């Protein structure tokens, strides 16, 4: 079919294509298409994703004017919009006033909203209005810096798959209820919570991301967890709590996650797991665990070392291990180096371990012994990468020599020593 070269190329495409094009341009440009031609007048108003971020701000220096303009723009866009809105993202450093935000959220709750992302300003926490809790089709909720108070008749988000709360103020009991009332929840992220004792019951949960000051974390009903990433901060309060708590944290946390594939722990995570951990007790094997990353592991604390060992011994299919050593050097105790010969079975092998990455290595006796242990029990090891910490410069050569003398079980293992340039 010959078309005349002046024929309109774009306007007659189906709305689904127009939408997929318009959502890939900044919203301001999408709105501007309304003056292109008659057919384009309201094409932008039917797109189902609205993303308001810093591309929508006017230039200028007066914060209140910019904020005011942004509020007007959002209000007008919502008012002119026609049809369902599936995604609304507000990502700006300017805090719109509460009445505006409440009205927008009320409007969105009537428009079949599925994805809601609100990340605004750094001044005040905004109070989420109750209409947020009555968006029945919500699948994706991200809230940053807000106050959440679920109303008493809140029955849960029945379609929610992804929940991310960062710096959110919510009564501790309500957070547990919120999590357990979302039956389809697959991904949970909680950041910067204070002194929280958390029990998570989420039968479909696959990805868990926790960061903050947690006193206690219990995974009670999470059989499908695939990825866990935890960063635990410490306060005096929590330290005390650690002294007093009973029961094995390792079991409470990692006792019910047989499908785990990836585990990442930061800061005091290994310390947390070490509490109540009994040596030589490995009830659970993690058949799918392939990647372990542990940061700030203190190789001077025998208990933490035991946790690490327990983890790697319980993961027969482990492929990649990354350990970063804590740079806190406490008073030097007598290192029980006999431990390695005596307590550890010589026949344990890490049949799939291919890559080991040790960072912030400071040449502590147990660190060196650990590397030796790994080298000697990993028949398919390909790379052992060691990066010393910047604080230790004098012992580097000695360490290097020691490392190279260790017996390697794997013929193709290479030991790389990476020195960060100062």
């Amino acid at each position, binding site marked *: *079919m010959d*078309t005349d*070269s*002046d*024929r*309109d*190329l*774009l*306007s007659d*495409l*189906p709305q*689904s*294509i127009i939408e*997929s*094009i*318009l959502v*890939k*341009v*900044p919203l*301001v*440009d999408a*709105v*501007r*298409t*309304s*003056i*292109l*031609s*008659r*057919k*384009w*007048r309201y094409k932008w108003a039917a797109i189902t994703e609205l993303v308001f971020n810093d591309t*929508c701000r*006017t*230039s*200028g220096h007066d914060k209140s004017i910019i904020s005011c*303009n*942004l509020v007007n*723009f959002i209000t*007008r*866009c919502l008012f*002119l919009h026609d049809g369902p809105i599936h995604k609304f993202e507000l990502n700006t450093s300017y805090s719109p006033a509460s009445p505006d935000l409440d009205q927008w959220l009320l409007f969105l709750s009537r428009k079949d909203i599925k994805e809601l992302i609100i990340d605004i300003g750094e001044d005040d926490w905004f109070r989420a209005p109750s209409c947020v809790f009555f968006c029945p089709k919500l699948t994706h909720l991200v809230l940053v810096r807000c106050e959440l108070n679920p109303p008493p008749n809140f029955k849960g988000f029945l379609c929610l798959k992804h929940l991310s709360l960062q710096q959110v103020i919510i009564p501790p009991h309500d957070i547990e209820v919120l999590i357990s009332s979302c039956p389809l929840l697959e991904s949970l992220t909680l950041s910067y919570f204070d002194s929280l004792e958390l029990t998570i019951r989420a039968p479909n949960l696959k990805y868990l991301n926790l960061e903050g000051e947690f006193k206690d974390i219990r995974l009670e009903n999470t059989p499908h967890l695939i990825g866990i990433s935890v960063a635990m901060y410490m306060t005096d309060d929590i330290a005390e709590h650690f002294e007093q708590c009973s029961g094995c944290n390792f079991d409470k946390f990692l006792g019910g996650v047989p499908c785990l594939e990836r585990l990442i722990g930061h800061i005091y995570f290994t310390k947390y797991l070490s509490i109540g951990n009994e040596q030589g007790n490995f009830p659970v094997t993690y058949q799918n665990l392939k990647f372990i990353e542990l940061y700030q592991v203190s190789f001077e604390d025998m208990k933490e070392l035991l946790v690490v060992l327990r983890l790697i011994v319980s993961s027969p299919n482990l492929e990649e291990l990354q350990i970063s050593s804590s740079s806190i050097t406490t008073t030097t105790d007598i290192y029980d180096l006999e431990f390695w010969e005596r307590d550890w079975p010589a026949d344990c092998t890490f049949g799939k371990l291919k890559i080991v990455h040790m960072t912030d290595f400071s040449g502590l006796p147990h660190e060196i012994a650990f590397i030796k242990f790994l080298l000697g029990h990993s028949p398919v090891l390909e790379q052992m990468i060691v990066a010393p910490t910047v604080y230790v410069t004098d012992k580097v050569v000695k360490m290097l020599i020691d490392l190279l003398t260790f017996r390697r079980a794997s013929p193709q293992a290479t030991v790389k020593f990476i020195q960060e340039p100062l």
Partner: protein
Amino acid sequence: MAVVKPEMKSYIWLQTADGSIQQVEEEVAMFCPMICREVLQTGMGSSKNYAISLPQRVNPAILGLILDYCQFHQVPGRSNKERKIFDEKFIRLDTKKLCELTSAADSLQLRPLVDLTSRALARMIEGKTPEEIRETFHLPDDLTEEEKLEPLRNMTDDPRIRLLNRLYARKRKELKEREKLKNVEVEEEQHVDERSVDDLLSFINGADEDSKSARATKSKKKNRRRKEQARNSSTNNETGNHNQESNCPPSSCLNGDTGDVPSPFKPSDLQVSASVKFSPKLDFDDGDIDDELDPAMKEEIDREVEDFARRLNSDWPERMQEILSLGQERRPVPLSVNGNGSLRRYTDFLPWHRGKCFYVLPCHVTPGSLVLLLVKLL
């Protein structure tokens, strides 16, 4: 186009909208969800006669491009970087081809290709001025002046557009004011009818003395609004007044005569209802009154009305008997729509038509007021 190697490969036959048939390697073709579904569900495509017919938006040239894409990406071993490089090169097409490709990929449900081409098209829209976009995509600049006058909902700091917005705003304001003047006149017209109905209703409903004055003031208020209208003056005013005032006294008279009044009217239901039928059509022009009567005139009018009311009440029973005795000729009271003129005619015939079917009313009783009275008496 897929390279045909003389090996044990299976092929899928595809037919484009123009009738031409192509033979494609199975793995390449199955990369498209739509083709895949067709093969699995209907078993088509296995031979030339049973070629899968592709949607209309896929022409042979575009199909070739799509198959190139599929052929590259269906190979599992490629790295992400390789794929990205291929994609970047792949979408270096002219705009027309790109649009056709997007459309075709969408109809074949090949989502990754739709995303890729949409991104390319999005790049052509982002940050460009409307003129540039129109040129790129051959869009007609067909917004009328009026449409352009509606405010541009754009957050922009382009000073030219801001200036344009201001000009448009001013023009809009002017248009609106012009329209407002038109609307005012239209509104007045509408009020005429509404108020007359209201009057009618209130007349029917409110028979008590208390609401009398309220009604009077209400109708007065409504009439005040109509002052601006260019309406006929004197005769209307007078009759209008009577209309208004006559609402009140007959009821008081009636209250006294309740014994007499209702019964004779039963047979007259026909007549009254007939005239009531007329009422919505009647042009209550008479309704508009100039409120500023001087009191002397007012008194005179009052007297006349009372007089008339008495006459009406006393005459009616006899009249009714007369009319009933005539029997057949039950014609509705011949009131014409344009009240005053025709009534005068009837008044002229006054002596002749006594005794006939119709009752001739004094000239200051307009059709509107008559109807109101009759309805009230009902």
